């Protein structure tokens, strides 16, 4: 019981459900809103990633500045075959064009992601999710504390019981960067690629240094998000894949039984 009690004390503001016994309560690891938005975001992210990669195949070259074509020296050339004959890919064949449905699915997923993201943001500010669960605690924001967490990770030490039930300072910083920096930048650079939106708000693209810079940044940000997702999955795996995924689906987790 002591584990449960300490967990409850620490997470007293977290919504809880009644257990079958009806008396004792187990805190929810994740609120319903976090769980639903997490999985919708997961589906949208996958769709955006696959279709985005597909669109890149039609022009796997990146430039800085306003303009760039196959006649321009690229800053980055991805060594893959292309779905367009004009692209000098170095391969002797041209892939079939899949841009039609890829674009449609890309934008539809983006719409869902943005709307769900807004819901998550508004709720997260109102119910204190960001303040309680994601913003690093002031006393944790010291080099010693950060270095301590990194040392534990590097030594592959399992988290303490307290840490396993909450997010450590590194996790919090990472989530804050992903939610408040990477995703907004992703949306911004994506909008900058819309000629109509640029006509309404030219600063969208001008502040980024031009259309091709916006496209290159959109690509680099997607790489950063993919790295985040890979590390995220690896750490969930390390912490106990089944129990953590179950917690993100049902909201319930029993700290003592976790495979740490």
């Amino acid at each position, binding site marked *: 019981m002591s584990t449960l009690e300490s967990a409850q004390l620490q997470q007293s503001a977290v919504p809880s*459900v*009644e257990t079958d016994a*009806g008396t004792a309560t187990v805190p929810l690891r994740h609120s319903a809103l976090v769980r639903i938005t997490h999985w919708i975001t997961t589906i949208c992210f996958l769709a955006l990633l696959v279709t985005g990669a597909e*669109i*890149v195949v*039609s*022009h796997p*070259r990146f430039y800085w500045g*306003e*303009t*760039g*074509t*196959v*006649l*321009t020296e690229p800053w980055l050339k991805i060594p893959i075959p292309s779905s*367009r*004959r*004009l692209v000098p890919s170095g391969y002797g064949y041209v892939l079939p064009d899949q*841009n*039609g*449905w890829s*674009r*449609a*699915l890309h*934008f*539809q997923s983006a*719409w869902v992601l943005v709307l769900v993201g807004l819901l998550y943001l508004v709720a997260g500010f109102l119910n204190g999710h960001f303040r309680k669960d994601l913003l690093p605690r002031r006393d944790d924001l010291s080099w010693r504390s950060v270095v301590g967490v990194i040392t534990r990770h590097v030594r592959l030490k399992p988290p303490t019981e307290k840490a396993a039930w909450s997010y450590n300072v590194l996790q919090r910083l990472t989530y804050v960067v992903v939610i408040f920096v990477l995703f907004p930048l992703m949306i911004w650079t994506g909008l900058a*690629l*819309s*000629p*109509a*939106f*640029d*006509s*309404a708000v*030219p600063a969208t*693209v*001008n502040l980024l240094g031009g*259309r*091709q810079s916006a*496209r290159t940044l959109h690509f680099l940000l997607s790489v950063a998000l993919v790295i985040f997702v890979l590390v995220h999955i690896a750490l969930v795996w390390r912490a106990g894949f089944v129990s953590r995924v179950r917690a993100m689906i049902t909201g319930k987790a029993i700290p003592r039984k976790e495979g740490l």
Partner: protein
Amino acid sequence: MSKISRRKMIVTGLGATVGVAGLGVAARLARKYGLVPPDDGGIYGPGETLTYASMRLLTRHSMAREFSRSQISQRPLANEIAPFGEEFKRHMAARFVDWRLVVDGMVDKPASFSVDQLKTYPSHTQITETVCEEGWSYVAEWNGVQLSHILNLVGAHPQAKYVFYFSIEPDWWDSVDMADAMHPQTFITYGMNGDNLPVGYGGPLRLKVPRQLGYKSVKFVNRLIVSDDAKKFGKGLGSISPEQGYAWYAGI
């Protein structure tokens, strides 16, 4: 347990009812104010409609970015096109003297214009970026005559909703709504970078819509039809693009 689930059920039910009713009202309003694209069906219909409706509300009068002369691309790019048909080759051999732009449909005075005739109307010049859906782009100076000028000359009917435009080459046609058709930057180009519009870029006439992706700017245009019904053309999706999997509205 039962208390929570009952309350949850009521809240969820109410939420769903309000949501569905709200969507119904929104759909009706959107249709009334012309915010639904012709290709609003299918699984990607909701996304296309959201994009078109938002952009129509946001960009009715906004202007595509224009650039300075120093920003004109040294090496523009003529995208690949299908081999020319016999009819186009004949016109090309005759230097397009017999090329005609036929304008009819919902207009008071159907008309047909030669390229030289179009050049006698007030000329419109703009330095804008051509943006391909694949990702590449270049800046060039274009000149021609505003589509709105032609539509006023022939007396397009006020109840018209779309202007359809056709290439001389088969299976190449598109349309814009009246907001884009009357927009000052939508124009019929006959010149590029101080010269006649080269064939590779759509010469002798190309309809340019700089606030949308390049594929919206059809090359070798020889016919305009003013209409109030997208259903009458092709499969009724507004252009050939949706029939090939691409969106009708290409402003993104």
